[in-house]
């Protein structure tokens, strides 16, 4: 936007929009992308956070005897629970687990969800530490900037993430317009270019162009997952106050769930036993040919208890496919919930694309790579903003100004500081005293505390290399600590060892970044942007934001 009133072209206008949408929430976007990338390994990271499970053998295929045993354990643990949801073991979750709602200690408080894992050898529930779980936290931080275990500022967090995502979409589309030589420079990256700005612009462009389909899908589908909060008017107009009906219809199940006190006062849940579960499993497998079963829920619907059978999400693109509902007493199939209507299916596919439950290990690693590339695209864009302004100031032999210094400190604190905080969270899940009250909240406080320390260090003059080096140490310490901390490191299965190896890789990446940022390093580190004028002019002419 020009202040002198001269006409500007479409491309310049888009360049302006790209620069400022990118900067305003760039730091939040960076955090969303990085945490979201880690959330592709949510199950594995959650398992890593609970060393009590590491020595357990992996469970075999789901059997009726296993369900009957789990049912007995749950009944002993929470006789008054209004329902539970059992999640079967699969290739990413070596042991089965179950959720149930513990009635509130004091009237007026919200019911608390409790999760228990089952020892495959005995079928009994295992006592695990009270932790948020690293995977769960990165996942929650990714879409609602989660700040406490119980719901606090969740809606606000989702609004902030939604705004950032919207700006991300704007930045992507304006970026395509701004990038004039999208095909000509498709493979062009000149890290040794004389002008630092040229090298950074190349890096930003190449990170942006190569994985553009991934960014467009992940950003748009991310926005869609929260559509009911961001665009409530349509739902309100058609459904009025009965928004529950909308969600029921969206999932293909029109029957509202009974919740809260009314259900808790109802009779205790029936026990199906070996015979009941084996009859149910046989019938469900007949209705879901070739499909695995992911979860089994038992809950009340008015007067009767109902079993819900959920097929595995890894077998299709669409999130939430058809589900079966049985009467828990008569064991008869009551209904099949399935919404194959175009709008609901589109939503399910977009949601499924975003959470990528279908991805087998090679595809999952590929998606993680693309997520890291997106993180790099945002980071290089933020750095480019400050490199360009510093180059401009040096050409005019002027001081870059306080705004520039602020952006640079925020860049260092956000980009190099966040990995340290994430490593700190993983440490906290393991080291905090087990008997501590509100332990998950303490883990989250440590995360935000370390993040704040990173910003403070950047404000006090810490450079990129210091924070990257601290991050590398933090991540490298995780596998070392797992091996030496007295946990069952050697008995742990491949999923836990893969997480440890992944931590080591993250540590190495951060170490390389720290090394690259040492003083006097080549242009892609923070070298002074002294460049011959013609190189800079060429860089600016190509629509640099």
């Amino acid at each position: 936007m020009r202040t002198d009133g001269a006409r500007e072209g479409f491309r310049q206008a888009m360049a302006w929009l790209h620069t400022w949408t990118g900067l305003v929430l760039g730091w939040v976007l960076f955090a969303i992308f990085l945490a979201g990338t880690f959330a592709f390994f949510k199950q594995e990271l959650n398992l890593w956070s609970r060393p009590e499970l590491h020595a357990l053998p992996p469970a075999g295929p789901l059997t009726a005897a296993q369900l009957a045993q789990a049912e007995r354990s749950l009944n002993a643990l929470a006789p008054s629970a209004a329902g539970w949801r059992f999640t079967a073991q699969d290739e990413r979750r070596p042991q089965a687990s179950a959720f149930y709602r513990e009635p509130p200690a004091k009237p007026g408080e919200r019911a608390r969800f409790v999760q228990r894992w089952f020892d495959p050898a005995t079928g009994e529930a295992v006592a695990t530490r009270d932790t948020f779980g690293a995977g769960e936290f990165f996942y929650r931080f990714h879409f609602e900037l989660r700040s406490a275990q119980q719901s606090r500022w969740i809606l606000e967090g989702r609004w902030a993430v939604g705004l950032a995502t919207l700006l991300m979409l704007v930045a992507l589309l304006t970026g395509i317009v701004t990038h004039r030589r999208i095909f000509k420079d498709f493979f062009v990256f000149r890290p040794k270019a004389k002008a630092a700005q040229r090298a950074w612009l190349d890096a930003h462009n190449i990170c942006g162009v190569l994985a553009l389909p991934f960014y467009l899908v992940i950003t748009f589908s991310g926005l869609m997952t929260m559509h009911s909060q961001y665009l409530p008017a349509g739902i309100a107009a058609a459904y009025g106050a009965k928004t529950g009906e909308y969600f029921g219809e969206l999932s293909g199940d029109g029957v509202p769930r009974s919740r809260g006190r009314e259900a808790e006062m109802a009779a205790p849940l029936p026990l199906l036993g070996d015979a009941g579960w084996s009859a149910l499993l046989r019938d469900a497998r007949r209705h879901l040919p070739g499909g695995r079963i992911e979860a089994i829920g038992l809950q009340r619907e008015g007067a009767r208890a109902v079993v819900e059978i959920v097929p595995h999400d890894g077998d299709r693109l669409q999130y939430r496919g058809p589900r079966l509902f049985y009467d828990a007493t008569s064991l008869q199939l009551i209904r099949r919930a399935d919404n194959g209507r175009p709008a609901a299916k589109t939503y399910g596919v977009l949601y499924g694309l975003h959470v990528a439950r279908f991805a087998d290990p090679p595809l999952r690693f590929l998606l993680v790579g693309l997520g890291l590339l997106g993180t790099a695209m945002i980071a290089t864009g933020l750095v480019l903003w400050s490199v360009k302004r510093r180059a401009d100031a040096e050409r005019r032999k002027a001081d870059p100004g306080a705004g520039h210094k602020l952006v640079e400190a925020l860049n260092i604190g956000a980009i190099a500081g966040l990995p340290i905080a994430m490593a700190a969270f993983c440490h906290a899940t393991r080291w905090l005293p087990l008997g501590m009250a509100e332990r998950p909240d303490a883990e989250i406080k440590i995360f935000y505390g370390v993040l704040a320390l990173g910003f403070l260090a950047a404000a006090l003059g810490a450079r990129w290399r210091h924070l990257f080096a601290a991050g590398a140490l933090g991540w490298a310490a995780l596998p070392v600590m797992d091996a030496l901390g007295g946990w069952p490191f050697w008995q742990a299965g491949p999923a836990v060892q893969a997480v440890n190896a992944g931590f080591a890789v993250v540590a190495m990446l951060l170490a390389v970044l720290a090394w690259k940022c040492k003083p006097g390093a080549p242009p892609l580190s923070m070298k002074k942007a002294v460049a011959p004028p013609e190189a800079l002019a060429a860089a600016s002419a190509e629509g640099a934001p």
Partner: protein
Amino acid sequence: MSLLHPLLCSFTAFAALCLAMERHHEEALDHAPSPRRVKRLRAVAVAAFIVSWWTVLPRPDPGIAWTMWTAQLTAGAIAVAVLATWWPRRLPAAAMAAGAAAVMLMPLLPWSGAPAG
């Protein structure tokens, strides 16, 4: 095999497209490509893209097939960009090796008629 074969194909395809550009051809082989070579390289690229698509196609869920195809396409392009940036002279040989490996692995693909490998 689920990702390896399409990845080899799309790497070959992107490498051919990359070498069909004057700048990258010069960096790899010290001279500009002839118009005939540009045409041939582009034809190779189109063929390799089609084969890469054919390789991911036979899956129960076509949506997953399309997702995998797009994802591996990106990976192939990244690999070419890395070579073109730091090892441009290795690019032609790497492309030929990947293309040859893709052709040799074709009989092992589950729907090629030969016993599955």
